[in-house]
């Protein structure tokens, strides 16, 4: 069952929320010792919440559009009173005093949160190997990475623990693990989903979004998540559409899909090129028209631009971890000593790399040469996308240049790891929506993802196109088969 079917069955009292939660917990207990998608299970709390849903049903009250649907949220989303580690020793024992708005939206809609998902420390990474606690495995090949930084959320959906999970995406952290785990992952337009209660990494880029195994569930999740939020100053106040209304289109006639001329020369694994061709022919068959578009500097400029701006913002955002107010605190003789030791002990290698890079590019004498140039390049990239969308409703492109890589493969060369996000991070730089969908499997059984990118507020188009592909290729299947939520 997908989330929509589950919620319907619960609202019609055909199955209880407790039965669904117990089933999901059973599957997690069966599989997660191998995959390790979950950092913190919240089973007891989940069963209590499920009982509340069932009581509402008995009293003929409506628990909401996600009634009894089990979900897992990335561990950088705050839940009041529940440990929220962000994958870091720095926050190993931190219990936030408030809920993230998206957590509240989920629970108000009747969802049952089963646990917090593993992630790269402070969402910095592309393999979930940077978690300070343990790495997560790719459900399709335990020797490979699930992608990152939302690797735990993607793996949880791929394993069939839950039909929906939340992640966050600063440079590809939803879409890249979605591609690697063979599920849908949607990074919404900047400003569409509230970030209140999302532990900040790079505030001009961060967005929260859903993972799912059906397009219907993505639309359902977006209807619940995409509310204006006075607690997030970057939350847009524009009226949200009903995302479900974009589904059920008989054809895609009139839709123009862009193919980026400059991407043709970029080295991409053959299975991914084949998947792109497969999706192109499905969309053509459905009536979409293909047009060439140009993003002349996006691919060249995106990576260096991102790896200046994101660390710059991170170095500023992570200055708050000082050992004084919350989180880890080292024994120290002086205040300076407290800062230096706490941060030296609490942060892992990748976080340290980014803080130092960010501090350097913002430091006196270097700001103009690095930060300002990167900021200008960012605007140029946004303009290139804007011109491209003058002639196209969406763009079809790879999510990643490669299939899931082996654990440890890029650990000694962080810049190689960064290249994994070469097709996803320009989308964050421009603040656009991006959807990664599964488009089949390699000969070795690894999922192959492709990406749809839309203009701002263009989520509906991406969902409609993804549904057309789903009709032909079917919904993504679960790893490990068997009973699944």
């Amino acid at each position, binding site marked *: 069952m997908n989330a929509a079917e589950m919620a319907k069955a619960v609202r019609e009292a055909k199955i209880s929320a407790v039965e669904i939660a117990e089933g999901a917990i059973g599957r997690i207990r069966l599989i997660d010792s191998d995959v390790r998608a979950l950092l913190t299970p919240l089973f007891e709390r989940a069963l209590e919440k499920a009982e509340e849903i069932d009581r509402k049903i008995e009293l003929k009250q409506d628990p909401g559009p996600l009634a009894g649907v089990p979900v897992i949220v990335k561990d950088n989303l705050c839940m009041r009173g529940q440990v929220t580690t962000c994958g870091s020793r720095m926050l190993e024992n931190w219990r936030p005093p408030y809920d993230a708005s998206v957590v509240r939206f989920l629970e108000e809609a009747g969802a049952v949160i089963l646990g917090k998902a593993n992630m790269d420390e402070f969402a910095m990474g592309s393999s979930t190997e940077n978690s300070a606690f343990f790495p997560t495995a790719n459900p399709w090949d335990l020797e490979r990475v699930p992608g990152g930084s939302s690797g735990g959320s993607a793996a949880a959906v791929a394993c069939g623990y839950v039909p929906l999970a939340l992640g966050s995406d600063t440079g590809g952290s939803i879409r890249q693990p979605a591609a690697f785990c063979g599920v849908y992952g949607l990074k919404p337009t900047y400003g569409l989903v509230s970030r209140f209660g999302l532990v900040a990494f790079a505030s001009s880029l961060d967005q929260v979004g859903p993972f799912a195994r059906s397009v219907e569930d993505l639309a359902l999740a977006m209807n619940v998540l995409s509310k204006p939020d006075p607690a997030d100053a970057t939350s847009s106040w524009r009226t949200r559409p009903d995302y479900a209304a974009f589904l059920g289109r008989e054809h895609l006639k009139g839709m123009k899909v862009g193919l980026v001329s400059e991407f043709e020369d970029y080295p991409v694994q053959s299975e991914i090129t084949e998947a792109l061709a497969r999706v192109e022919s499905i969309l053509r068959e459905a009536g979409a028209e293909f047009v060439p578009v140009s993003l002349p500097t996006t691919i060249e400029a995106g990576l260096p631009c991102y790896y200046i701006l994101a660390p710059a913002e991170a170095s500023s955002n992570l200055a708050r971890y000082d050992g004084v*107010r919350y989180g880890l605190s080292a024994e120290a003789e002086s205040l300076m000593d407290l800062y*230096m030791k706490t941060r030296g002990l609490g942060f892992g290698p990748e976080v340290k*790399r980014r803080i130092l890079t960010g*501090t350097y590019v913002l430091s006196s004498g270097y700001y103009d040469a690095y930060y300002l*140039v*990167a900021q200008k390049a960012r605007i140029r990239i946004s303009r290139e996308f804007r011109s491209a969308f003058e002639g196209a409703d969406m763009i079809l492109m790879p999510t990643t240049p490669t299939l899931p890589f082996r654990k440890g493969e890029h650990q000694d060369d*962080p810049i190689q790891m960064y290249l994994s996000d070469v097709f996803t991070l320009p989308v964050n730089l421009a603040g656009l929506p991006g959807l990664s969908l599964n488009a089949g499997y390699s000969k070795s059984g690894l999922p192959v993802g492709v990406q749809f990118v839309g203009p*701002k507020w263009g989520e509906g188009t991406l969902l409609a196109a993804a549904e057309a592909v789903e009709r032909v290729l079917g919904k993504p299947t679960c790893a490990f088969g068997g009973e699944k939520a």
Partner: protein
Amino acid sequence: MPIGKDEILRIADLARLFVSEEEIGPLQRHLNGILEHFERLKELDLEGIDPFAVECDTAGSSRQDAVSFWPGREDVLAQAPNREGDFFRVPRILDESDEVHLDECR
């Protein structure tokens, strides 16, 4: 000019981040790698671009500047690594010479 060991230590100091002797080499290589990558950006034509001309769709989303009650104060203080009453306690900030100086000011 590649970044040297002293520069890494200077940046680490600015970032209030203790870096061990073993960490310096890898950090140096990494930062130099990033900056080398960055050279590509310098080839772009960025003439006339206002670096802060970011499109903004959130105008008008400011809240009313009004005080509201928030019940989480005790939860926040309870997380303090070193608390004294309603205060966060920190190690000594001033050293003795500062205190002498303060006395002079008085």
